[in-house]
């Protein structure tokens, strides 16, 4: 213990901290997978193929960034995939009625925001646990899609609507990938460099303490639900555009993949810690694993074993290691 006159700001430099972090471990995994893939398949190191591979994760990752903030704050949203379905259905109905591309985008984003607001009110307004609220809204939102669409499908989106999910900005760089990168940057800044981000961490570590420190906990959480809804709306636009059609079963089961991506990215599922960089790397890891194994025509389910095992082992290994060292 040092007397305060001499309290140093930091004991370890940020550099030292980073080298020992989760993100560096994950980065190693990512590089390992990349190298392994290059050896395993002759088709892997090809710009177009790598570009195609990004579609396996960009939409999920966009939601994962918002979800990361939500999980860091100690909440969760399992209704994200259902929001995609509802937003996509709304866009489909609008397209049917002749609404143009700008209008469709506006509708997709608004439905996302509305759904997020609905979750947010239930959780922050009524003080309900988010995991059960969003299990409920997950059925509710997708259920509304089913009521509207039943066994029908919406097609016939305006031709220029296809750009969001199928367009390329420059050479092999797809619009979705650029959007993914921009969103990642925005969320990284928001979480790590703003007052809002600091509040998110504080709430996740101790919501009562944050409230007693003058942070508007309810408002911050509500905004996080809004953001998650909004990102689901963005993903709905991209996915709908990529598929060119809407069915109520669209994006089925994505919520758990998105949560997996966030947790794999080193975000503490119990709240309080995590980084956007981690989620970005996790997105690449998941994308690389599925794509690499896909090139070998390994069925998707085997890839999910790999992801599941990776999820458990990247958390378990450091703990096993420290247990082993402690004897």
């Amino acid at each position: 213990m040092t007397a305060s006159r001499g309290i140093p700001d930091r004991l370890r430099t940020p550099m030292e901290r980073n080298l020992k972090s989760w993100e560096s471990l994950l980065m190693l995994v990512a590089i390992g997978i990349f190298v392994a893939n290059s050896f395993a398949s002759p088709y892997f190191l090809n710009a177009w193929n790598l570009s195609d591979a990004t579609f396996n994760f960009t939409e999920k990752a966009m939601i994962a960034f918002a979800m990361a903030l939500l999980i860091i704050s100690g909440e969760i949203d399992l209704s994200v995939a259902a929001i995609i379905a509802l937003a996509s259905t709304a866009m489909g109905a609008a397209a049917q009625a002749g609404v143009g591309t700008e209008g469709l985008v506006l509708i997709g984003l608004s439905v996302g925001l509305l759904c997020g607001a609905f979750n947010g009110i239930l959780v922050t307004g009524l003080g309900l646990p988010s995991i059960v609220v969003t299990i409920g809204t997950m059925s509710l939102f997708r259920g509304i899609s089913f009521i509207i669409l039943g066994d029908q499908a919406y097609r016939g989106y305006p031709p220029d609507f296809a750009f969001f999910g199928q367009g390329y900005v420059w050479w092999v760089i797809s619009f979705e990938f650029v959007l993914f990168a921009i969103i990642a940057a925005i969320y990284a800044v928001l979480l790590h460099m703003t007052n809002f981000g600091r509040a998110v961490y504080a709430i996740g570590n101790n919501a009562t303490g944050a409230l007693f420190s003058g942070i508007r906990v309810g408002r911050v959480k509500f905004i996080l639900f809004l953001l998650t809804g909004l990102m689901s709306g963005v993903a709905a636009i991209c996915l709908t555009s990529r598929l060119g059609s809407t069915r109520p079963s669209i994006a089925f089961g994505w919520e758990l993949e998105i949560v997996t991506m966030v947790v794999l990215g080193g975000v503490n599922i119990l709240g309080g810690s995590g980084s956007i960089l981690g989620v970005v790397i996790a997105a690449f890891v998941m994308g690389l694993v599925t794509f690499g194994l896909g090139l070998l025509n390994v069925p998707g389910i085997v890839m999910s074993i790999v992801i599941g095992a990776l999820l458990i082992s990247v958390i378990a290994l450091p703990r096993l290691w420290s247990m082993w060292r402690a004897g």
Partner: protein
Amino acid sequence: MQLELRADVSTQTASGVTPLLSLSGVTKTFPGVRALSDVSLKLYPGKVTALVGENGAGKSTLVKVLTGIYQPDDGDIRIDGQPVRFPTPQSAEHAGVTAIHQETVLFDELSVAENIFLGHAPTGRFGLIDSSAMMTRAREILSSIGGAIDPGTTLKELGTANKHLVAIARALSVDARAVIMDEPTAALSHAEIEELYELVEELKRQGKAILFISHKFDEIFRIADFYTVYRDGQMVGEGAMSEVSEPELVKMMVGRDVSQIFPKRDHNIGAEILVVDDYQHPTEFADIGFTLRRGEILGFYGLVGAGRSEFMQALFGITRPSGGTVKIDGAPVTIRSPADAVASGIVYVPEDRGRQGTIGALPIFQNVTLPSLTRTSRKGFLKLAEEFKLARAYATRLDLRAASLDTDVGNLSGGNQQKVVIAKWLATQPKVIVLDEPTKGIDIGSKAAVHDFMAELAAQGLAVIMVSSEIPEIVGMSDRVIVMREGRIAARLDRDDITPETLVGHAAGLGETRR
């Protein structure tokens, strides 16, 4: 239960009597902390031994070692001179050692009887729990300690005091020979404390050995026969209560003389700054109104549960009042959230440091700047250098002790955590600071520091509200006192009227209660 141990205590020493329970050479380390180092302790049948020491001296750790919750790294525990080991809490119970722990360790959703017998319920056929036997025995134990609680009620339906009775009943449900009480009176009201003293006498008569841990010197001198003092995890003294004086005991604990507990202050009371009028709440309090001036310390006294904390939390925007107004510097303000309160210059140092005061997993500097982020940032973007600057300024001012400013607050000692909470609020440059039980559970050395600091704040023109259940503190520190009873103001006392008698009388609603 029928122990016929009659040690000769007329000599005031216990030499020659085999202790019922004795410890020697016990050491316990946590990562980075040596909580106990080579300590010893002796408990005698039919006697109360007081264990005293500053916060973090290792008292509770010792309790956990004695009840099988922690395993000591080294050392020797004997019962009746025979060495024993407590690998699990059950094994300690079997050996006849039971404890009322410092924290409440009960289950809200279980019934009173289940709470009492969890882990050692009477079983009947097929090893199934025999609920009727459990009920009967629970009722017996409860009535033996003067509690009229139905063992079938769910625990969450009970008030604090009754919960505490259940905790005591739980400790007694084991056929114990040694009973450990870790700060048992910290959460009790005056009348309940008296009942507890009677219970202790009864246990003494039954020949049980009692270990009594407390920071309150009056009660130690009242009920203990022997004392043991720990400091920084080491034993620094032991002996008979009758052979030690209060200053001597304090010196042993703190390692230096603590001469003057309540600092003398010159009165420099300024203009009116806070006016609260007719504050109401549907269930917790009603008709609260008062004024506060710069440089003034306004004490709030009352029995536990009088609604002081609830009112302060409403004033701070945690809960919504159903009516009433607040004026700061003559201008009315609306407080709907703590953020509003901070913006209007009212800050609140809560009772529950760990849960409400600090954010344990965030570093010191982030805790300090949390409410002041708008000032250390530009357009919502953080500026770390500014944050460190602010945190360093207040850490220096409060003489905070820590390895670095990015140490997590959770790793600090209780006293230093309290400093972080105060630093956090001073950094917002408040007008009114509310301190809720600022010295609760704090040892005598740190207490003096907090009192000094409070006086200094008032001298600098800050208006201070101090909620406290400790009469000496209220008497020693307050310029004026408001006594609350059952959610309403029972009395307003000026400096000259503040005596222990008037305080207790108004708080209890009668005139006759005496300490």
